[in-house]
C-alpha cells in the first residue's frame, strides 16, 4: 500500500522495491540489488522527493 501511494503521488514504480532476504541468501541479495540498480539506472536521476540545498 505504501508503494501504491507513492506511485499514485507520481514516484516511478521502478524506484520502489520490496524484498525479503535472509542473511544466508547472499546470491539473492546480489540479484535483487542488481535488478534494482538496473531499473533505477534506466530511469535516470530522481527529481522527486529531493531537497535542493544549493540555491
Amino acid at each position, binding site marked *: 500500500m505504501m508503494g501504491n501511494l507513492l506511485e499514485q503521488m*507520481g514516484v516511478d514504480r521502478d524506484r520502489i522495491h520490496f524484498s525479503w532476504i535472509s542473511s544466508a541468501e547472499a546470491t539473492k541479495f546480489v540479484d535483487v540489488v542488481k535488478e534494482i540498480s538496473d531499473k533505477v539506472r534506466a530511469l535516470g536521476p530522481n527529481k522527486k522527493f529531493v*531537497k535542493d540545498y544549493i540555491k
Partner: protein
Amino acid sequence: MDTCIEKIRAIGADLLAEGTVEKVIGFANGSIPMATRPVALTSEKDMDKLVFNSVCGLNLANYVSKNSLSKKEGKIAVVAKGCDARNLVTHIVENQISRDQIYIIGVPCTGMVDKRKIAALFEDEITGFEEDNDTLTVSSPSKTETVKKSDVLRHNCRVCTHRNPPVYDVMAGEPVEEQTLDQPYEDVDQIAAMDPDARWAYFEKLTENCIRCYACRNACPLCYCPTCFVDESGPQWVGKGQNETDVTTFHFLRAFHCAGRCTDCGACVEACPMGINVRDFTRKLNKDALELFGWEAGLDLDKRPPLDVYSPNDPNDFIK
C-alpha cells in the same frame, strides 16, 4: 427540520440524570453562522446547547481519545454520525478506549455541507444560515441565497456508504437509506490515469499552499500519538519549514499512518484553513484497503485491521 436533535437532547439528559455517563460530547453552535464546535456537557440542564445540523463536519471521536480515557474517567456519551461511530470503533479496536467506556448516541446522517462551496456563492461574509430538510437558506448583508443541500454536500459525504452508525448503544432516529456507488473511487482513478510526472505535479500543486499548521492532523481521530513524527526533534524525521519536499513528506506520511484506518470522515479537510483536499492522499489508501484486503475501517469490533495481522492470503507479489 427533524435533525434528531430533540431526541439527542432527551437521550443525553436521561443519561446524565441517571448517572449512566459523566459527560456528553456533542456539537454546539459556533461563534459564527455555519460553524459548530465540539462540546462536553456534564449537566442535563445544558442539553439545549446541543445542536445537530448540516455543519457538524468535525469528528467527535477525536475528542474522546488522545489517550484521555486511559486515565480513570467515567463513561462518556458521544453523539455519533456514521463516520464518528466508525472512528469510535477504530479507537476500540486499537485499544485506545474500551467499549464499556463509551455510550454511542448514533445519529443517522444525511451528510454535511461543504462550507467553502457555499461561501463561494457570496462576496461578503455570511451572516445567516438556516436549514429545512434539503433546503438551505444562507444570507449575507448583500443577498440571500437558497441552495439545495444535496448540491453542496462535501465530497466525502457524497460518496459515503455508511451513513448509519455500524455500532451504537441507542439510535436517535430511523436509519437513513445507504447509497451504493458504481464508481466509489472515481477521484482516485482520475489521478491514477495521469502519467507519473502529471501525478507528481498534481500533488505538488495540491499542497503548495500548505502552511504546516497541522490542523488536518489535529482534527483526525486517528492521530493520537503523544508525539507526532513531525513534532519530534530527536531524531528529526522531517524538516519543519515550507520546503516542498518536507511538505510532501509530511503529507505522504500523515496519510500512510492512516492506512487501513481512515473512515473518510472528512474532518481533516474540514479543518484545513487553506482548503486543501488532503483526502486525495488517504482515499488512495482506502481504495487499496478495500481492493486488496476487502477492508473498510470501523465497521466491526471483532475484526483486526489488515495492517495489524498477517494472513497467508495477503497480497505479496510486490515482494521479490
